[in-house]
């Protein structure tokens, strides 16, 4: 089992303390929020698409929670602009863990992937491929 302290590398702590793209977008194409019951983490993402209706122009997020969930949201917010919704859809757990660059202990995976799930669910709801849900949750 990997050491939990390894999760708290400088990069993570930096994103936690100084989150990038924190705030709201004035005219988001869609917004979606999510909740991780196991840590009580909350995240809300605003996404603005380009005119092609496909490609992400900008994102912003607001949130509260543990360092892993908040740093993951911040790092993801830097990675999303320029990606298409299809590409977002293809992101998986490993991409997120690669992005974080640390070994996440099994107990904390849900914190790490919350941001990805929120954006994916928001995109699916926007595209009409999923039913409207108020909130994405990771299972407790």
């Amino acid at each position, binding site marked *: 089992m990997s050491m939990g302290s390894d999760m708290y590398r400088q990069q993570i702590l930096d994103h936690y303390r100084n989150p990038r793209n924190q705030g709201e977008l004035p005219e988001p194409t869609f917004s979606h929020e999510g909740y991780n019951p196991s840590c009580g983490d909350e995240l809300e993402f605003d996404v603005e698409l380009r005119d092609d209706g496909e490609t992400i122009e900008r994102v912003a997020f607001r949130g509260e929670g543990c360092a892993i969930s908040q740093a993951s949201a911040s790092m993801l917010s830097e990675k999303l602009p320029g990606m298409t919704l299809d590409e977002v859809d293809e992101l998986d757990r490993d991409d997120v863990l690669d992005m974080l660059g640390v070994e996440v202990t099994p107990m*904390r995976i849900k*914190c790490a992937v919350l941001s990805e799930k929120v954006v994916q669910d928001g995109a699916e709801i926007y595209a009409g491929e999923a039913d409207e849900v108020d909130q994405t949750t990771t299972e407790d």
Partner: protein
Amino acid sequence: MEATEQAPLDVEAIRADFPILEREVADGRDLVYLDNAATSQTPDQVVDAIADYYRRYNSNVHRGLHELSQEASVAYEDAHDKLAEFVGGEDREEMVFTKNTTEAENLVAFAWGLNELGPGDEVVLTQMEHHASLVTWQQVAEKTGAEVKYIPITDEGYLDMDAAAEMITEDTQLVNVVHVSNTLGTVNPVGDLADIAHDHDAFIFVDGAQAAPTRPVDVQEIDADFYAFSGHKMLGPTGIGCLYGKRHLLEAMEPYLYGGMMIKKVTYEDSTWNDLPWKFEAGTPVIAQGVALAEAVDYIEDVGMEAIQAHEEELTEYAYDRLTETGDVDVYGPPGDDRGAVVSFNVDGIHAHDLSSILNDYGVAIRAGDHCTQPLHDTLGVAASARASFYLYNTREEVDALVDAVDEARDIFA
């Protein structure tokens, strides 16, 4: 060490009964298990009682007329007597075995609450109730049209007894109060609350999940109508809880779940119910778990409940003092010398879950989250807290390990 009337615990001898405490975690660290309010560890004596049951006299109860069944029945029935006596009840008829404390709450909520409550009735809880009672009575109120009220807590984490005296009225049908808060550590004046409830002809349900494992409990002294606790928090197995109820109340209550064992006569048209406590135990009951829990009570009584309590109070106060040495830790609830063996806290700038991850690396197992008291955490203004909780096998050195690990977390997040 000062001379005390109570002989101190021989913690080293006790630890030898708990092989799990020898475990290493996190790539070679000694386990420091401080999550006892969630579940306690299980001594060899209890594990052996389980194995002995399955290897020697496992059988269904009340049903066969063969020797195995007789032995299992006697052991299972005696376990009821023992657990009744453990909290000051009279005998097995006042002791129902459930799955856990949560089911004990639901049993009374379903068998009594759903049948008796209606619009205009009130159920008075406290702001520090566990989800086991809070969600249950909230939903029963919703189904019946009754109303739920919450006795507020003071800044120090005590119940506001003036408010309690005002909130409990003629409309109150039940007061449900946690004996020892699993988050704040507050030891509530359950006897006083019982008096107030009874003055208004209301019943009192005491949630003893944290109290029964850690201090002498006497339901008759409290004058509790119902008292619930869990086996897995008092050295016993998972899968068993206890509901003490006054005999005349249990007798008057409708059954809870239906099935075998709880009936007397059944036809295709109708059924009649068995005597106490079996009326409330439908289906094949928690036989091995009952036998094992009785063994856990023996263990506790051999060690001595007063000694356990004294040991815990000492550790708790020490932990409280050490954790608050630096100025950046908020501990929730009453002072360190007036609380049960739980210390919930937050360190400035470190989310409780990050803290617990780091502590885990140092072998220190604590719980982080809302401890099944989400609304209380809202009241405290935090989403989560870290909680260290102690039991008879914990040591001052383990408290030191906790404090040292918190220091490491501070360094990381500095």
